[in-house]
């Protein structure tokens, strides 16, 4: 199917891109790698007057080590993340997340910023115009009720980005810029938790950088993803876990983040109680994973039923905690 007609703008620098966004306020959609948005255009989920491709912007790429953190520019490709010894060395879960996105040809062009800023998805929404028109519009299409949960007045579309749970587990922040202004917010604050409008970035803003703090001391992390086949798929459930140890060898920080169960990644606050204050061998993995199950309420709006995906939250969180404990041991803790 053809893409809808649009005018294309091709800035050469971030400064130029910001000027374009300012000039054409609200009428421009950004194409970074394009691997997600091109399909949304094709399905007429978006029909912008202007598209702005970032492929020619040279100052938005690269991974740099700074004092106490890594700075990942937003148009860095997922392949560059997967192949970066720095990322693999200091943030296993982030490297694993990037490596599990789609397949190598997609990762050759898909960007970190595009992966983070993908819109939420739902079986009833991500369909061709023809299929969508066969039913009354759902909430995300401006209708009055949810198509997945009949009569529902809330949009349950699912955020299926792979990177966000791991970036949140590492307490990463993002830099959002608009003409003359910049703000830095935690990755978690990029999400509104409202499926209709899931992202908090403004129409006139560009996500330029991701700041990932380098944790101190011994720590480990792991990302686990449920999908129907081992290539090409969005996560149907995902779990990312970060654990760090105090000098005394006790877990002093635990962050469990579940993805693909609702409009935003979920930080499982209850899990820490079963992990923090314990030695790795004494961590109550089962109970921590159980708390992730309790915190998740997926519904029947993706390729697998909500009830099954909820059970899998526990299984995959358990695997992620065990993976993080294993990487802690490998780190010599």
């Amino acid at each position, binding site marked *: 199917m*053809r*893409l809808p007609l649009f005018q294309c703008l*091709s800035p050469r620098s971030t400064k130029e891109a910001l000027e374009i966004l300012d000039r054409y306020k609200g009428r421009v959609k950004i194409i970074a790698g*394009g691997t997600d948005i091109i399909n949304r255009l094709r399905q007429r989920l978006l029909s912008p007057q202007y598209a702005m491709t970032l492929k020619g912007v040279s100052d938005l790429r690269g991974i740099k080590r700074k004092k106490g953190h890594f700075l990942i520019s937003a148009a860095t490709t997922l392949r560059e993340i997967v192949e970066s010894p720095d990322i693999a060395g200091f943030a296993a879960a982030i490297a694993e997340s990037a490596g599990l996105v*789609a397949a*190598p040809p*997609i990762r050759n*062009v898909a960007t970190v910023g595009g992966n983070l800023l993908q819109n939420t998805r739902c079986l009833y929404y991500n369909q061709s115009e023809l299929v969508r028109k066969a039913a009354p519009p759902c909430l995300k299409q401006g209708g009055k009720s949810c198509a997945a949960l009949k009569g529902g007045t809330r949009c349950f579309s699912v955020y299926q980005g792979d990177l966000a749970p791991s970036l949140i587990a590492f307490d990463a922040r993002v830099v959002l810029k608009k003409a003359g202004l910049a703000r830095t917010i935690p990755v978690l604050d990029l999400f509104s938790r409202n499926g209709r409008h899931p992202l908090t970035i403004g129409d006139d803003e560009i996500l330029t950088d991701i700041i990932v703090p380098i944790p101190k001391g011994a720590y480990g992390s792991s990302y686990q993803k449920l999908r129907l086949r081992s290539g090409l798929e969005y996560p149907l459930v995902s779990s990312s876990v970060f654990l760090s140890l105090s000098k005394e060898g006790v877990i002093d920080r635990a962050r469990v983040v579940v993805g693909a169960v609702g409009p935003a990644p979920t930080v499982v606050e209850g899990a820490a109680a079963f992990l923090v204050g314990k030695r790795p061998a004494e961590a109550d993995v089962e109970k921590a994973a159980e708390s992730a199950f309790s915190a998740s309420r997926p519904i029947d709006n993706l390729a697998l039923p909500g009830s099954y995906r909820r059970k899998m939250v526990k299984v995959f969180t358990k695997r992620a905690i065990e993976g993080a404990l294993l990487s802690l041991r490998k780190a010599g803790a």
Partner: protein
Amino acid sequence: MEKHRVTLRVNGEAYDLLTYPHRTLLEVLREDLHLTGAKESCGEGACGSCTVLLDGAPVRSCLLLAIEAEGREITTIEGLAAGGKLHPLQEAFVEHHAIQCGFCTPGMILTAKALLDATPEPTEEEIRRALSGNICRCTGYAKIVDAVKAASAGGRKSG
């Protein structure tokens, strides 16, 4: 709506084109340059039959605007044979019966070419990973993997 003037470098030749910005690289290759080796199958980036090499790396030409490929080196399946002689990967695909309906074949071969250019002696696991984004609906994967193995430096030595 305004057309854009672009120069695409495809299989070593430069083509000056005037095209609308919303057209994909796949559309321009097939319809304007009549290079129909790259196929449209799923039309959403899931299947890999539209694969071309962009600066040597496999990408989905259905997910790329043609104007975004300006200044990059594009290789399609038509660019592989040289002087009337098939590329060793093409030979191996024929030899090992790695083609059934043929729709996925250009994408499989180009993806495999990028792998072998970077890793001349890949393990079977590496071959399977590299091809994990290419779907063969005839499900002839075993023969495809055999063909790639045979065309690799290791395969040619033992063959």
